[in-house]
């Protein structure tokens, strides 16, 4: 890393003892982060509406919107899963602070994806249940959506307190099942070009594996834990 910031080390006077941090100071300086993630994460909705208005969604706008909201769900879920490994690898704190926002954005897009699907079929619950029961590709997608519901409902800090950290963590491990079903939904939904869904599968597998690799060092205490690299 460059040390090129020319500012003298004036804060040394109130510098913390080595190895301890000042989360409050840090927290204040990251106040922009969550709003930025929310705005950035919702930007695709604005662009999609603009595309719909200008005709850039193409000849079959419903199909495009369905595809894109599905991809957004999967991408944001993967991004939320990347937060913890990224924090552990780099020692950065900010990934932990946006994990919830990314997860909620993913859930929002999943709901939107589902609503567009319902709209596509004239909000016919008969067609929906027929699809959910008879077509595995819809079954897994619907299951993934259902799995995300309790996670979205318990995303607040109060829920962590209410459930207890361990229970809450166990519950939120469901996200792996949800993202796996989501990727399978994508894979089965594609007509022939299976490369894009397989890329998602690969990334998810790597992130899942990293959980286990990184678990060990975090249990130990020591100076090296924040910056394993």
């Amino acid at each position: 890393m460059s040390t090129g910031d020319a500012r003298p080390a004036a804060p040394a006077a109130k510098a913390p003892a080595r190895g301890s941090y000042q989360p409050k100071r840090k927290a204040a300086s990251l106040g922009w982060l969550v709003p930025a993630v929310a705005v950035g994460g919702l930007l695709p909705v604005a662009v999609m509406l603009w595309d719909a208005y200008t005709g850039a969604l193409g000849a079959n706008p419903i199909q495009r919107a369905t595809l894109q909201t599905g991809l957004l769900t999967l991408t944001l879920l993967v991004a939320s899963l990347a937060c913890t490994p990224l924090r552990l690898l780099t020692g950065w704190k900010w990934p932990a602070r946006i994990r919830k926002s990314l997860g909620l954005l993913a859930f929002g897009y999943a709901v939107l994806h589902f609503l567009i699907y319902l709209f596509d079929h004239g909000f016919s619950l008969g067609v929906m249940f027929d699809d959910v029961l008879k077509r595995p590709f819809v079954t897994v997608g619907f299951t993934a959506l259902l799995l995300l519901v309790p996670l979205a409902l318990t995303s607040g800090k109060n829920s962590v307190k209410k459930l207890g950290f361990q229970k809450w963590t166990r519950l939120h491990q469901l996200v792996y099942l949800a993202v796996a079903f989501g990727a399978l939904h994508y894979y089965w939904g594609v007509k022939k070009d299976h490369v894009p869904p397989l890329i998602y599968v690969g990334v998810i597998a790597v992130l899942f594996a990293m959980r286990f690799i990184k678990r060990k060092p975090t249990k130990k205490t020591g100076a090296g834990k924040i910056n394993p690299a």
Partner: protein
Amino acid sequence: MSNTPDDNQINPSEINPEERRILVPGSPINPRREFLRSAALFTGTVAALGGGLEVLTRRPGVGSAEAQGTDFAQASRPLGPYDTKEAVTSYQQATTYNNFYELGTDKADPARNAASLKPRPWTVKIDGEVKKPQTVDIDTLQSWFPLEDRIYRMRCVEGWSMVMPWLGFPLAGLIRRIEPTSKAKYVQFTALLDPKMFPGQKSNVLDWPYVEGLRLDEALHPLAFMAVGLHGKVLPGQNGAPLRLVVPWKYGFKGIKSIVKITLTEKMPKTTWALAAPSEYGFYANVNPAVPHPRWSQATERRIGELGRRKTLPFNGYADEVAGLYKGMDLRKNF
């Protein structure tokens, strides 16, 4: 590259990067500076996340000019017996939303990549169980027949449909001209294999070249059509220039594009999609709302240009004309 600290109590090399990050930014606290910094970081994050999501998930369509003028001299004429009276899909939509994996797997790819396909010079080889095997130039082949126009429904296996005003000639005329032998039972069509013209063939998403086929009696049916034009214009690359098959009672993938070879055979041809996914796509591929695709229903379709869905008709609405071809056949097995 490195600054010398005023504070000589701590050697900068002793500060680990994490501490440095906390020590340096935004301090000493200057509200104005802090605000500008936060605003910059906010904007950067919005752009990075929003832009990243767009790059990963947005698949924009393509704009394409409306057809100008006509390439084929056309007298206005009454609707023929096989023409549908339904509203015709616009040239713009019919030429920017295509399945033509040789030019890319996204619906907008064929329009984007069509320039790489050069439809002239072009020859078509006619061989197999015919009395007159030959290789014929596309313009000569076209000159054998008076051009007709046909307004046909086109139903894609993916659940969308269009109404296409084709220009061309009935396949039956061509088959009769090349005189099948008594052994001929099927017609096999082969598309161009040329990764330079077809960049999609650099990927092995399908087994190239694309092959399709019909039973001889299907090929001789007056609805089966060879198209060389669309909307009064020469067929654009993305729609299968210079010569493509149109079989309106079958799913769109039967309509092989950019044909270079027509072979009469004794045995049923091994067709591309049936080889790629035998449980999903059959040789017959007749439009049938009662037989779902394994992954989706075929009961309804979206007509391009409409938001809602409409019911899919048996044989795509051509049952009166063609159902007789399949008398006694189990259409669930022969999907």
